[in-house]
């Protein structure tokens, strides 16, 4: 938190200095800064808070949209078959970002023109236009019509909201004169790749300025290695897993033999099947 506050103070000072030297030019100018350009996600990655701040034209409201890379998700719908709840249908959803958050200094009920210009609304409906829901297998897929797609997209959004990947946070941005600041939470399962942040300054029912920034979330080399090895070199990965298991098993046997003190106490080493 101390680091975030310091970051905000530095940004405020920079904004003030800029305004002091060029007050006229700053009026319609917007900047967007983050306290990190790259986030390294290791095995212990517990999610993180990304501090955002910048300058905005005087008297404007600020809206920040955070969009992760698009991905294909497979959704399984559960239905009742007799007494049991089972997967009764599976669909693929394409074109929905794996991360979507909107923070604003005001409510999210924007005028139509601003909604069209920013793609921001009081719900996630603006995302639906770019999404496709496909049923059937990969060779013979049917695109579902919008009325049927909507149910699936709503459920996908709910699942993402549960994992803190999708969030709408009115009043999540604090504007102070011509500067603004806020915090974005990226959960542990945040998509790896480029996350695009766009800040909009809205005044008198129109967008008067905007700024963009990209933040990259990437796995550390060990996580990347594990993921890539499992998918791209499955044979080598499988052999490694077996060697590690055998080595661990033998090491544990040795440790407990020593702990038991006597080599004859082998009965205690049976760990099971």
């Amino acid at each position, binding site marked *: 938190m101390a680091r975030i506050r310091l970051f905000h103070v530095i940004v405020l000072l920079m904004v003030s200095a800029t305004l002091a030297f060029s007050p006229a030019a700053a009026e319609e100018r917007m900047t967007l800064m983050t306290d990190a350009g790259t986030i390294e996600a290791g095995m212990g990655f517990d999610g993180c808070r990304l501090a955002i701040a910048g300058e905005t034209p005087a008297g404007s409201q600020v809206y920040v949209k955070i969009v992760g890379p698009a991905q*294909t998700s*497979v*959704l399984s719908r559960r239905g009742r078959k007799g007494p049991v709840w089972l997967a009764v249908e599976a669909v693929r959803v394409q074109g929905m970002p794996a991360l979507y958050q909107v923070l604003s200094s005001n409510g999210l009920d924007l005028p139509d023109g601003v909604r069209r210009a920013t793609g921001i609304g009081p719900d996630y409906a603006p995302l639906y236009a770019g999404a496709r829901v496909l049923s059937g297998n990969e060779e013979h897929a049917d695109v579902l019509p919008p009325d049927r797609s909507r149910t699936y997209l709503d459920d996908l959004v709910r*699942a993402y909201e549960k994992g803190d990947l999708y969030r709408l946070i009115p009043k999540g941005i604090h504007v102070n004169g011509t500067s603004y600041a806020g915090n974005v939470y990226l959960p542990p*399962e945040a998509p790896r790749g480029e996350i695009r942040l766009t800040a909009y300054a809205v005044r008198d029912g129109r967008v008067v300025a905007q700024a963009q920034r990209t933040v990259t979330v990437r796995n550390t080399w060990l996580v990347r290695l594990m993921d890539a090895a499992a998918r791209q070199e499955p044979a080598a990965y499988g052999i490694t897993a077996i060697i590690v298991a055998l080595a661990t098993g033998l090491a544990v046997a040795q440790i407990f033999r020593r702990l038991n003190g006597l080599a004859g106490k082998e009965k205690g*080493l049976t760990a099971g*099947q």
Partner: protein
Amino acid sequence: MSLYLAVAGIAVNPLAVLGLAATAGTLSGLFGTGGGFLLTPLLMFLGIPPAVAAASGCNQIVASSCTGALAHKRLGNVDVKMGLIFLSGAVLGGAAGAQVVRILRGLGHYDDAVKAVYVVMLALIGAFMLRESLQARQRPSGGPGFTTSRIKGLLARLPLQTEFRVSGIRTSILFIVGLGFFAGFLAATLGVGGGFITIPVMIYLLGVPTLVAVGTGLFQIVFTGISVTFQQALTNHTVDLVLAVVLFGGAAIGAQIGARIARFFRAQQIRLFLAVAVLAVMAGMMAGLLSPPETAMTIVRAGGGH
């Protein structure tokens, strides 16, 4: 605190995983079973995808069973001939099981299928053990009692009869291969060693001495686990090595604790506890299948953004 599992693609609490593995390991040490049949469902309760839980659980089985197998080998309790014949069936069963996992995952039915099979399997095992342990309390010996003469007669009529000197029995190679196939299939589909079925079969149907059955069972489970881990890695990419390593640690510690606790109880008491533990896990899984889900839709898998 969280631990990101690269293959599973989710973050879990490592202490929770370690605790579950230690619990399964304690049960394993306490009851003399592998504990795999309890570990996989417990991992599913933590939110780990069933396919990853089963495959990584199988990898863990390699580590936990090799310590026991080595100890039994030194004591002369391993019938290598029977183990190798068993293994030939297990490799085939493991290959078939990995393909079944692949097909069911493609259809989106693997998760439900594995849960349903677990419910049935745990219900049968739990009910059998409960009945057997309650009956044992009334028998003077306290040991298990079965009538298997008809099945033994059928086994004696199967072709390819051969002598197993270490076990001191004569039986059909076909039956041992079939038993191995079944164990391999269970390992691939459910992430279990299958010892809770194969060892009683060896003891009660084939007449293999208990220690040789346990030693040979562990010996074949090491190789079944190796074969299935490799096939799962190759076919389904579902072996999560980080998860497996945490499981090794927890299970190894738990097994030692369980072995020490076991000294304070009589055999039939232990079997009764195991029956109750198995039935409790079964009830939890059954409740999951019978009660309406929190959301009608679940994300089976996501990709393309990584």
